[in-house]
């Protein structure tokens, strides 16, 4: 072993924390026995370290520290005061945001459905012009009733004629729809939520054409059913067991 290696290994040969493997430790020991310079460096290092190490560990322990620590860990964990304050303020802030959001939600202006524009467009385009977001085969009606949106389906239609139901976009809003087919005639029923659309303003409105439109309110006035249909007659989509009222 040369002196350079020996002096590097000296750092790893502290008496209380030996880090050298046995062969290296033996080689270092032999080198120190034969090399007075390296042995002197080792002695010097230890002599310089000893008073510093003693002073480093010379920290008096405060009276009662052990008891205070044991008492602290024995007590149930407490939430620091600053954290409690922070939690209270965070809770208040969240409540204010929720209230503001709720107020905004309940006072959200209702969408005014522009039925004239819708009617005009429908008569210049295919009946299915509104972008369909989701569409399901009708046999899934019971399990996937219209994408989680609140729905009340009109009762008097012949649901054997139902071909699809789904979600489409109507004047920027996601709206559930049912689509019926009877021969070459199509009927689409848009189910308008009274919390989002001003359905009262349109109740009973009828617009005829190649594609006709008619609006009817549900019995509890919570929904408006906007019928968009071809062939000029809505009753061809009714359930024969139910007497038509329109």
């Amino acid at each position: 072993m040369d002196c350079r290696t020996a002096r590097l290994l000296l750092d790893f040969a502290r008496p209380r924390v030996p880090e050298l493997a046995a062969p290296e430790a033996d080689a270092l020991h032999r080198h120190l026995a034969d090399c007075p310079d390296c042995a002197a460096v080792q002695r010097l290092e230890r002599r310089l370290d000893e008073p510093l190490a003693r002073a480093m560990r010379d920290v008096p322990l405060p009276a009662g520290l052990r008891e205070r620590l044991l008492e602290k860990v024995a007590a149930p964990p407490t939430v620091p005061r600053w954290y409690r304050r922070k939690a209270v303020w965070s809770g208040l802030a969240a409540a204010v945001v929720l209230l503001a959001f709720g107020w905004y939600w309940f006072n959200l202006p209702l969408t005014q459905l522009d039925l004239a524009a819708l009617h005009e467009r429908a008569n210049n385009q295919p009946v299915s012009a509104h972008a369909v977001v989701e569409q399901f085969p009708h046999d899934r009606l019971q399990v996937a009733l219209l994408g989680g949106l609140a729905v009340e389906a009109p009762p008097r239609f012949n649901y054997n004629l139902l071909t699809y139901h789904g979600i489409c976009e109507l004047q920027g809003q996601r709206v559930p729809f049912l689509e019926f087919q009877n021969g070459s005639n199509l009927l689409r029923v848009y189910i308008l939520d009274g919390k989002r659309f001003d359905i009262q303003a349109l109740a009973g409105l009828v617009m005829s054409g190649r594609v006709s439109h008619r609006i009817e309110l549900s019995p509890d006035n919570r929904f408006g059913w906007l019928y968009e249909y071809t062939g000029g007659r809505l009753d061809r989509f009714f359930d024969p067991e139910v007497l038509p009222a329109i």
Partner: protein
Amino acid sequence: MGLPGSQWRIQELVEEHYPNLYRYAYRLTGSAADAEDLTQDTFCKAQSQLGQLRQAERVKPWLYSILRNAYLHRVRSRQQQRCVSLDQVGDLPEAPADPLPEVEPERLQQALAELDEVFRTPVILYYFEDFSYRDIAEQMDLPIGTVMSRLARAKAYLRSRLLPAAPALADGPRRATDGL
């Protein structure tokens, strides 16, 4: 009725480790009050995370690591401390005459306070003589070579501040980074 397992364990840890953890905290902070707070925080945190300790033999470095992190968290939330530059520290003191005088712990604390934390932590752990270079490197998440380099410079600084100079060794003074 006996204590629940984790409660028994944390009390055992306090009994075994609080003196050295407090001393480590004191040397890091230089304040008895801060050291006690840090020690207390360390055990409280250890209590809440005891389930995460997988290797029982690693408990000591784990506790020291918690304490150091808590200390760093406090330091960062306070104003930056002024520290000396160790760039000028190069030569180790030469061999002093016997006997070496004792180092006053207060003077040592002053000198430690002048060191940046990245130098102070390894030198404290080194002189506690409880941690190997590998342990210190793991504590600080640093390569072992970096720890050795920092340690050499910090030791040289403390020796130059606290120990008297003396006649040279036969091969002359050593650089703090000799052999690195």
